[in-house]
């Protein structure tokens, strides 16, 4: 991950060496489908579909999530320390812009085209204004398999994209009606001090300031096989959770399905373009695209639930977890990669 192919792919025969972009899209899709991550997610869905009672213990799932976010932050911080800060100003700026326009486009589409009420529109828009860290990680892992280098500071962009979209969407919801039950200030505090921010931003800072060489002491735990193996277990359970939502799909109708896919593609392509404009490598732009295409299912749900209780949480969770998330990790990421290659 993070452009260090030398260390991360020591055996380096994941794929037969072949010049970038030469693999046809179908082959890339096939390789992505057969990655342990995608297969573990599929296994989780399967377990739900056959009505297995299997699921990871709750605290194990939470624990794996904590580990993954902290690892991500640490690695990002270590890489960030290697860069002159000026390099990231432009990428940070475009990421902030993405964080502002994505909730607005989502809200507009839901309200005007979907005919949802203001509460539901704002609630879903808060999810699509934020970002899914697991989608981000899946994109990094995919690019590593493609031997495509990426900027090491990308987790910084992830942290920046997390919260503005939630607040913009909640602010719209709050403006449109009076039935809010929680002050914006307390929601702001909740999101900014939530698990994701503490671990991701905290990890970034720890990684940034760690004495030179100490990363090597812990890299074997926070990177490489342990990171990827833990990610598989996490995705196994995410499959179970997403599988549990599949039943809700029928009720929520075709529009939500279309919304979850089309919004992802549009936001994804815009994200790729914005990334390339800001000077990111094709790999980095792919990751920014995947982030932009993703929807939150950890940070946004409680924030929305507390502020806009009239918004139906089933709609937003189904869209982000059972539609957009699988679409992105199966089709979206390879697609944004192709788009990035075409655009360069």
């Amino acid at each position, binding site marked *: 991950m993070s452009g260090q192919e030398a260390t991360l792919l020591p055996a380096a025969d994941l794929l037969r060496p072949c010049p970038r972009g030469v693999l046809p899209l179908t082959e890339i899709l096939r390789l992505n489908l057969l990655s342990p991550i995608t297969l573990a997610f599929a296994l989780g869905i399967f377990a739900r579909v056959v009505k297995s009672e299997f699921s990871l213990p*709750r605290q194990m*799932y939470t624990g794996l999530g904590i580990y993954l976010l902290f690892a991500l932050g640490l690695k990002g911080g270590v890489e960030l320390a290697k860069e002159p800060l000026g390099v990231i100003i432009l990428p940070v700026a475009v990421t902030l812009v993405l964080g502002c326009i994505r909730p607005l486009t989502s809200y507009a589409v839901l309200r005007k085209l979907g005919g949802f009420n203001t509460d539901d529109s704002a609630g879903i828009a808060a999810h699509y204004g934020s970002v899914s860290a697991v989608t981000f990680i899946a994109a990094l892992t995919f690019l590593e398999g493609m031997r495509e280098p990426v900027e090491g500071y990308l987790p910084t962009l992830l942290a920046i994209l997390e919260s503005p979209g939630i607040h913009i969407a909640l602010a719209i919801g709050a403006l449109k009606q009076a039935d809010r*039950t*929680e002050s914006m200030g307390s929601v702001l505090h909740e999101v900014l001090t939530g698990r994701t921010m503490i671990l991701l931003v905290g990890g970034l800072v720890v990684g940034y300031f760690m004495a030179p060489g100490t990363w090597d002491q812990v890299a074997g735990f926070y990177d490489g096989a342990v990171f990827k193996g833990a990610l598989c277990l996490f995705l196994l359970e995410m499959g179970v*959770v997403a599988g*549990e*939502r599949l039943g809700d799909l029928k009720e929520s109708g075709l529009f939500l399905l279309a919304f979850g896919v089309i919004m992802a593609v549009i936001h994804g392509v815009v994200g790729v373009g914005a990334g390339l404009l800001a000077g990111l490598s094709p790999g980095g732009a792919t990751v920014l695209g995947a982030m932009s295409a993703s929807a939150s*299912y*950890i940070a946004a*749900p*409680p924030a*929305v*639930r*507390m502020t806009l*209780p*009239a918004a139906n*949480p*089933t709609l937003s*969770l189904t869209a982000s*977890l059972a539609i957009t998330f699988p679409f992105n990790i199966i089709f979206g990421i390879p697609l944004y990669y192709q788009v990035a290659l075409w655009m360069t």
Partner: protein
Amino acid sequence: MELHTLTLITIVAEPVLEERLTRRLLELGATGYTVMDIRGRGTRGIRTGDIPGQGIRIETLVTDEVAEAILEEATASWFPHYAVVVWASPARVVRGDKYVEG
């Protein structure tokens, strides 16, 4: 042995409400509370967070007046918005004077 008869209020709710509900209980006059993690099923099936079917169960021993206040707030403010279940039952409490605020 001094036993006071108080009201035990039990609340089953979405996890996202834990902080808000317990804060309100203290504001309404409860002197303490006990929280447990539960899973469950009801008519609304509304749950947030990543794991569906999970919830919390809050118990608080309060005087009758505080109980009234809690039940009223539950009916007026919590029930319309959130998946909460609230019930009251009498309990004979050891050193019940401890639970009267003031």
